């Protein structure tokens, strides 16, 4: 009986195209996305059927479930200008380096006396600080939120004028309130009242999209 040799098959896959594709995807994502900035507080927003998207140039006041208030505003130049104005009012001087660091920060929430220290801290130190911070003060004796809103508007207006003169595209500053669904309505009402005292009457309430 002749020996029947079982033919050995050696499959070989050329992996070059797959690797090419991987590099292409990595390059695409490297160039098109930005790192999501570390938020100091996670907010569980309520959902709504509204489909309007968040506008670009906004001032955001965040209220977390414990009722702490945080503040954020877009625009590096705007932020630097704002910090300088606040420094003048509260008699705190900020170094140019601190201005730069503040310009790339996002949301923050603490009394202005503690802000200088916060800016100088590292990411990890900031994280521990944020866990026990009480947020921006909103009580009538120390209504710092009102000052942030007021000077924020001035800073945004200056930036608007500067951009307009330089012929760049301009967008109006809008106001957003990002509240946790479980936050007491009382504190959100306080924020709305403070806004109204600063002559702001139109807001965007940030929500998740509801699945109908």
């Amino acid at each position, binding site marked *: 009986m*002749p020996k*029947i*040799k079982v*033919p*050995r*098959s*050696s*499959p*070989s*896959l*050329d992996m070059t*195209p*797959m690797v*090419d*594709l991987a590099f*292409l*995807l990595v390059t*695409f994502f490297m160039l098109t*996305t930005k790192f999501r900035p570390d938020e100091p507080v996670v907010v569980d*927003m*309520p*959902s*709504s*059927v*509204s*489909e*309007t*998207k*968040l*506008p670009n140039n906004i001032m955001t006041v965040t*209220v977390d479930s414990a009722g702490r208030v945080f503040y954020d505003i877009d625009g590096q130049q705007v932020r630097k200008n704002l910090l300088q104005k606040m420094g003048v009012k509260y008699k705190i001087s900020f170094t140019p380096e601190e201005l730069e660091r503040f310009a790339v920060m996002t949301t923050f929430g603490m009394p202005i006396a503690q802000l200088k220290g916060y800016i100088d801290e590292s990411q990890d130190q900031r994280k521990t600080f944020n866990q026990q911070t009480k947020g921006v003060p909103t009580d009538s004796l120390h209504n710092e939120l009102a000052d942030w809103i007021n000077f924020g508007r001035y800073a945004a207006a200056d930036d608007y004028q500067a951009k307009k003169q330089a012929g760049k595209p301009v967008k109006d500053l809008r106001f*957003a*309130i990002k*509240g*946790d*669904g*479980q*936050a*007491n*309505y*009382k504190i*959100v*009402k306080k924020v*709305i009242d403070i806004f*109204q*005292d600063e002559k702001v*009457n*139109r*807001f*965007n*309430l*940030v*929500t*998740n*999209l*509801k699945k109908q």
Partner: protein
Amino acid sequence: MAEVNTSDSGGGTGGKKGKHQKKRAKKSSTKIDMTPMVDLAFLLLTFFMLTTTFSKPQVMELTMPIKDKNVDSTKIKNSLALTVILSDHNKIYYYGGEFKDTTQLHTTDYSKDGIRKILLARNKFVLDSISIISKEHDNKQITDAQFEDYKAKAQGSRDALFVLVKPDSLAKYGNVVDMFDELSICNVQKYALVNLYPGEKEKIKNYKPN
């Protein structure tokens, strides 16, 4: 293009045609050409690059009236005014027209059978108008811009429901957003976020629905 060489079956199945072939152990080489797979990958990539946008959180518009003590209040027909009081534990109390005492209060909740039914019933005029306009829009009798225009007019008309949303001190922010959402679903455009009247506050505090 894909070439898969398997070993020749030789005397087995090939015997049908009666091929006389020498039994040779052919070295088989499985080579799969990957070109179609890469083509497909690029196609999918291009498709997603062109059709998707990065997801941004959604927003809801809220406009408050100017905080001016001298503004005179607009007159609303009693039958078209609905006051909704938001309380703790997702409870809603509501009454129509003016507030006299707690016997007018009804209780409901945020489910589909709750406040939505009430709003749909009371806002019947606007909803009927809008359904007529939608039919015309579906039949292409009016343009999109006209449809939006008529819709806005219907929602702002004098016969549209006006809702006063009054969250009490125990309500959560999520309750208020849910309420606005229900108003938006029921096409109620005339609403205001206000405080409870001092008289209301006292009476509601001790109100226990039976």
